[in-house]
């Protein structure tokens, strides 16, 4: 084992140690708990940076990755091995995961109001409501510290563990372990404020919806394992095994084995990355605290779904039909979610739908074979979307400050129509949010989002996927539009409420992560400028393409430059942004907003449809058919027949045999006969000696005569 692999083994451990330490020992001390958690994240960050840096120095890392494995499960004559693997894909993923995780950990300290007094009437399980303090003789309300502060850090520690496990895994089984641990943490964190019924239900919904995907993924893993006898990705990607998988038909709708396995694994991703039709959980997941939204719904967990598809790309790409399905789901989700985002008023929900849409971009990119573009967008999106979520958290925090100031708790601090004019109140938040928003929109040249999105467009155009290209272009236009709508409603114009007027910039623990993520949201794009880009191309080497492309056995060709995707990308980004600004510059209430269409606002009624078609019938079936009818009715009904049945047999035996034959005929009968004889014979028991003597004489004569005739004669 080399130093690099040893460090890679160790990367996931600090956060999980932090989890156990906090849960078992330090949960009463807030300072100790967050120190341990942030310290754990910092250690993992250091390890990740070291491994990333070492990985950069290796030529042809894709062919000679850092890897090490151990025996885990004894099965028959062989062992199932698990281990770590650092190839270019792992390296770049580690880089952005470590950064975003560390930033989010740090941000959480401020977000949960560390250092503030205990709330006046805060309860565990509910968000803090503020505390009254007396200063210079007059009372005012300030934010209060989260009552379950330590617990939060324990959970996000476990979450980070899951993510790191997933990233460094060299096999699908531990990848799945990390995947599910994140699923658990997502459940725990979405339902962090479990006393809110909405949060509680959202948590269950998230877990169950993703579990639908997970059981398919589990089947896919089992299938892959039975066919290949291994779960290590490097072994699976050997030419021989891939060839086998490609040539054996699966017997299911004409898919090859590779195609069906790929599809099963992809369904797991559909759940985890909230793709249509399993997207419904992610918007509701906004019930969780904002750092959770940033971490789960932007930087890590939803990215994990895409990461898994990228990881299995050599397998999935073998079957054209699976790829078509992947491309379709991705492109459809991209445009579908973008239309919903246009009509949302909750600042976090807009971002939630935006995330679904952007993940659709990546999935679509993979579906058309644009491997590097998908990785590129995955990374840039993680940075700018984490930035946007944390920025929205900062905005909400600022607004909550205003709410506490005015004391009017009816004002929803997340509704963008209650905001406005926050540009001057929260300058750092504004500028960083603007950068994030522009990156999301693909603002040309300066933002990272532009370069990654442009590469997807170029790939789609260059390889003739016109339908995908057009769909994504429209989605990108909508993206720019709703992003500018959000920025305009939130930051520009005049404050629309008293609360917005009293909004305040947040502490450094929250703004520092914003600034750092903003740097990445701009700078990361420079690592992936295409070589033939007019003017800029070739000034900086296209490092990302070279490095990440090396993960695949066959280095993907860079697409030929074409003006069509570039111009499209410029038009949709700038057009969307401009329109968004002018459209919403003067809009001050939902009534004035022409896009508040019921169909979009209600997310095409998917929640209602699923509830009616799946959830309610399932419970009805379980309760009435399985439990009451089958178990209690039929099965127990039959069993309960045995009781009366046996009793019936017993009764019959008694009534028709025992009582009449044994008791009456034999038992009582013999007594009766004896009694009858006795009665008859009683007549001769007179007590007179003369009669007895007479009788004796008669018997003597009779017996004597009988003896004479029968014996002697």
């Amino acid at each position, binding site marked *: 084992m080399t130093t690099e692999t040893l460090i890679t083994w160790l990367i996931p451990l600090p956060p999980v140690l932090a989890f156990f330490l906090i*849960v078992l020992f330090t949960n009463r001390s807030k300072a100790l708990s967050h120190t341990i958690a942030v310290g754990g994240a910092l250690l993992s960050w250091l390890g990740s940076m070291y491994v990333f840096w070492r990985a950069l120095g290796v030529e042809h890392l894709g062919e000679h990755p850092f890897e090490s494995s151990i*025996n*885990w*499960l*004894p*099965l*028959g*004559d062989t062992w199932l091995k698990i281990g770590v693997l650092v190839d270019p894909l792992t390296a770049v993923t580690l880089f952005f995961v470590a950064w975003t995780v560390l930033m989010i950990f740090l941000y959480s300290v401020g977000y949960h109001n560390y250092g503030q007094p205990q709330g006046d009437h805060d*309860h*565990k*399980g509910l968000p803090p409501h503020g505390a009254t303090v007396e200063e210079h003789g007059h009372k005012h309300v300030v934010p209060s510290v989260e009552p379950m502060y330590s617990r939060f850090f324990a959970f996000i520690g476990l979450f980070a563990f899951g993510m790191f496990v997933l990233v460094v895994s060299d096999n699908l*089984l531990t990848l*799945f*372990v990390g*995947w*599910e*641990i994140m699923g*658990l943490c997502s*459940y*725990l964190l979405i*339902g962090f404020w*479990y*006393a*809110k*019924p909405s949060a*509680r239900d959202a*948590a*269950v919904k998230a*877990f*169950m919806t993703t*579990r*639908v995907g997970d*059981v*398919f993924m*589990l*089947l896919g*893993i*089992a*299938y892959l*394992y*039975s066919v290949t006898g291994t779960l290590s990705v490097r072994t699976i990607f050997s030419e021989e095994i891939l060839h086998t998988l490609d040539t054996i038909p699966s017997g299911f709708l004409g898919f090859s084995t590779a195609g069906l396995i790929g599809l099963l694994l992809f369904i797991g991703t559909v759940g985890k990355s909230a793709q249509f039709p399993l997207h419904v959980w992610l918007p509701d997941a906004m019930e969780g605290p904002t750092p959770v939204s940033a971490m789960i719904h932007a930087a890590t967990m939803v990215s994990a779904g895409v990461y898994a598809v990228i990881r299995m790309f050599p397998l999935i790409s073998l079957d054209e039909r699976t790829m078509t399905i992947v491309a379709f789901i991705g492109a459809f989700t991209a445009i579908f979610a973008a239309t919903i985002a246009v009509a949302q008023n909750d600042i976090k929900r807009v971002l939630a739908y935006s995330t679904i849409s952007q993940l659709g971009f990546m999935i679509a990119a993979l579906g058309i074979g644009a491997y590097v573009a998908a990785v590129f967008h995955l990374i840039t999106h993680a940075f700018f979307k984490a930035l946007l979520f944390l920025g929205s958290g900062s905005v909400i925090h600022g607004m909550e400050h205003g709410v506490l100031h005015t004391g009017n708790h009816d004002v929803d601090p997340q509704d963008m129509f209650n905001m406005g004019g926050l540009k001057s109140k929260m300058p750092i938040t504004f500028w960083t949010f603007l950068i994030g928003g522009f990156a999301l929109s693909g603002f040309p040249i300066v933002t990272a989002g532009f370069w990654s999105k442009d590469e997807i467009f170029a790939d789609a155009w260059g390889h003739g996927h016109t339908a995908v290209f057009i769909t994504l272009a429209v989605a990108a236009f909508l993206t720019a539009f709703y992003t500018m709508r959000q920025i305009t409603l939130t930051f520009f114009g005049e404050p629309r409420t008293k609360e917005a007027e009293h909004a305040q910039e947040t502490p450094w623990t929250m703004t520092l992560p914003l600034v750092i993520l903003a740097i990445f949201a701009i700078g990361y794009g420079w690592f992936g400028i295409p070589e033939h880009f007019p003017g800029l191309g070739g000034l900086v080497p296209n490092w990302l393409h070279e490095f990440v492309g090396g993960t695949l056995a066959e280095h993907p060709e860079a697409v030929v430059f074409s003006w069509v995707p570039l111009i499209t990308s410029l038009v949709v980004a700038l057009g969307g942004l401009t329109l968004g600004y002018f459209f919403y510059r003067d809009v001050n209430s939902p009534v004035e907003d022409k896009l508040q269409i019921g169909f979009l606002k209600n997310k095409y009624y998917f929640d209602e449809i699923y509830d009616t078609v799946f959830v309610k019938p*399932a*419970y009805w*079936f*379980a*309760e009435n058919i*399985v*439990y*009451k009818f*089958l*178990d*209690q009715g039929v*099965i*127990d009904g039959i*069993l309960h027949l*045995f009781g009366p049945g046996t009793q019936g047999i017993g009764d019959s035996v008694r009534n028709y045999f025992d009582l009449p034959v044994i008791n009456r005929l034999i038992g009582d009968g013999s007594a009766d006969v004896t009694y009858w004889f006795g009665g008859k014979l009683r007549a001769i028991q007179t007590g007179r000696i003369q009669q007895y003597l007479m009788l004796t004489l008669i018997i003597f004569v009779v017996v004597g005569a009988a003896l004479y005739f029968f014996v002697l004669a």
Partner: protein
Amino acid sequence: MDFISTHLLSLILFTPAVAALLLLFMPKDEPRLYRWFALGASLVPFVLSLIAWFHFQSGEPGFQFEETYVWYQAIGSSLHLGVDGLSLTMVLLTTLLTPLAILASFSITEKVKAYMMLFLFLEMGMLGVFMSLDLLVFFVFWEVGLVPMYFLINQWGSANRNYASLKFLIYTMGGSLGLLLAIQLLGVLFGTYDLITLYQNWTSLKPNEVLLGMSVQTVKTIAFWAFAIAFAIKIPVWPFHTWLPDAHTEAPTAGSMILAGVLLKLGAYGFLRLILPLYPVEAKVFAGALALLATAAIVFGALASYAQTDFKRLVAYSSVNHMGFVVLGIAAAGLASGTEDATIALNGAILQMFNHGLSAAGMFFLVGVIYERTHTRNLEEFGGLFPLVPVYGGILIFTSMASLGLPGLNGFISEFLVVRGTWPILTGYTVISMLGLLFTGAYILKGIKKVLHGPMNEHWAAARGEHRLTEINTREILVMAPLMVLILWIGIYPAWILDVINKAVVMLF
């Protein structure tokens, strides 16, 4: 020391019974004494089985620590004990769970002496089944385990205990009837009940031979079904399962722990020890039917659990769901015995038996903890308890997740292995069983949601006196701690136990 090493199994087996008899002679009205004595007595077999575990040579074929005593010479039956990797795992599970169940029973205040005695006899019955290598002795212990459990439910159970205990007893006895007949049949045919001799002679029977006026085929089929039904009732396989929710729900907490933790495994153990080796042909023919029933158990068990409003019944039905995976693995192994897939499926099935023992015992205990305080199991009356009992809540979520099969905890490993093993053999059933896995999530989350989550429960927060909802106490945490450690340990590094199971499976099947 020498005596211990030569009599290891009989010491493990009879220590509880001797202790139970000693309890009989203890002074009156000393419940504390009975409790501690029973706990101590049940720890002895545990320590001894740990010794057995560490001295066990998992690489060697056949049975180890064998002991034979004359028992019923006239009909060729002897007290023959021995363990292999399969039975040793179950012995360890039994001797581990019994002290925990006794510790969990410290809150019993009525007729403590009788209770503890029954518990110790119960342990002997269960251990005897796992250890005996003689069919008649096997049967005797099989029945010995029934009686104490009947009285435990009947005397210390909750409201509907008469119905439940009767149903449990009659149902299991009904199964035993066939079992006894089939065992007699074998005994008459071969003049011995010794399992090892039977293993050898049984397979050497020629198909055209005539036994007792019937063809070998008929005899085997009859005996197969007699065994199969007896064990299917005990596991229980759908549709023989309805005694389980009643018995589990009405039994006292520790009774449920042992019922779910060990007694259900007796059935699965019977399948593995007797049916698969003795009837490979029949097992193969009827594996499809068995797989169908197993899938029904997985899916319907999960759905029925999801439909419950009684917390304990919800957990009880989860056993049907989880044991379904054991049976599915066994069915796959019956269909394709000897293949690598079958080995993996059996590894999964046996590990699932052990894992379910841990998590189900834990779940029942946790239900008991809250029931003892609130005197209700109705999920509608709970909700919002997390702020009142945070430690309990954490432990409940942990154990629930083990039951749900969360990766990183033990249940996942075994379920994954079963799914992996059965996929190539019984693809369709494996796919359908995923529906059960999905609903496992639904009922577990329902349980957590209905008990812990939601707005703070004012009713229980304000409850005082007998019904006061207090945090889980140290004794109760001590019951849970070993279970939780094992759940996590097997989830992270299962090789220590899976290696023993795997070697046994490779050699046996």
